[in-house]
């Protein structure tokens, strides 16, 4: 009985003991909104046989919002040669980004090779959007700085020789555009 009473009193004492320190917490929460955008890419299309150069459209971004400062949209372009089922030959081709050359009048200075796996950048702006078009440096400078031009078209190039080597068949090639939001470098 005595033992029981001792334990009860000890428990009561512990419960009523005054704690000198108090801790309380405030939780702060925030939500980073996901950036939204529409990536516009060239439409599916037929390349006429023997065509060595053809404009296939442009890569642009529209309706972009929610890009925090220091964030860009990176688009990686990958593609393979034309292949056909049951045909051994392939038709290699190259893509180029080309700016409007009316400014410089010199095409070579306003185009950029777009080899498979190349990433292009739509730079973030202060208003939470990203640039609608990719901007490239040209060989021309103004006031010591390279003149920048917006990309206006994606150009397809295939050599006559490669067309000539291809065996008859229905060929296809897929260009994949992979977009992701990245931190500006």
């Amino acid at each position, binding site marked *: 009985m005595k033992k029981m009473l001792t334990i009860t009193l000890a428990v009561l004492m512990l419960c009523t003991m005054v704690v000198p320190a108090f801790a309380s917490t405030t939780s702060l929460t925030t939500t980073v909104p996901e950036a939204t955008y529409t990536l516009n890419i060239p439409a*599916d299309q037929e390349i006429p046989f023997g065509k060595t150069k053809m404009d296939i459209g442009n890569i642009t971004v529209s309706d972009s919002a929610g890009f925090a400062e220091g964030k860009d949209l990176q688009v990686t372009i990958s593609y393979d040669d034309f292949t056909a089922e049951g045909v051994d030959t392939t038709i290699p081709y190259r893509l180029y980004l080309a700016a409007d050359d009316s400014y410089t009048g010199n095409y070579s200075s306003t185009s950029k090779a777009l080899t498979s796996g190349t990433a292009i950048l739509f730079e973030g702006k202060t208003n939470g959007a990203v640039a609608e078009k990719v901007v490239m440096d040209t060989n021309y400078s103004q006031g010591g700085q390279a003149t920048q031009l917006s990309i206006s078209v994606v150009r397809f190039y295939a050599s*006559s020789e490669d067309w000539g080597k291809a065996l008859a068949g229905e060929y296809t090639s897929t260009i994949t555009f992979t977009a*992701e939001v990245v931190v500006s470098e």
Partner: protein
Amino acid sequence: MKNKETAFMKLLHGAVVFLSFLLIVLYPSAVQAQTTQLTTTVPNQITVSLQIIGDGIVMLNGKYYSTSAELTLPQNAPIRLTFTARQPDTEVKVLYKGKAVHMDGAYTATIEKCADGDTLRVEFIQQQIPQTGDESKNFILILLITLSTIGMLWMIKFEKEETDAKIS
């Protein structure tokens, strides 16, 4: 009893792993991919013999030829030819299967369809420059001047001899 508990734990672990996998797979990724499909049709091809006579260059479907060659061309596709003569005053004549081809211009022609094994002949013919009457006139003039000069010299010499004879 213990065996039952172990089996339950194993099942639980399996369920956790499966759910984690589903979460990873179904989680909305920030990376988006879109594709563009390019297609092209390579037609059956034929072989055509190109013969070039004379001094000139033939551009056929974007390729240049200055000597005769065997060409591999797409079937049922028009062939566009452009000619560049290396010599002035050259006329170009195109013969397909031995028949003259209508020229689009002085130096271009189009053949709508070629068949396998056909021959295409391009002739660069340099024009002969006709003789004009001016040259014979010039020759006569030079001849007359030469004869007059000789005659005058002969007269001077004759007069001098006569004068010398009178003095002596």
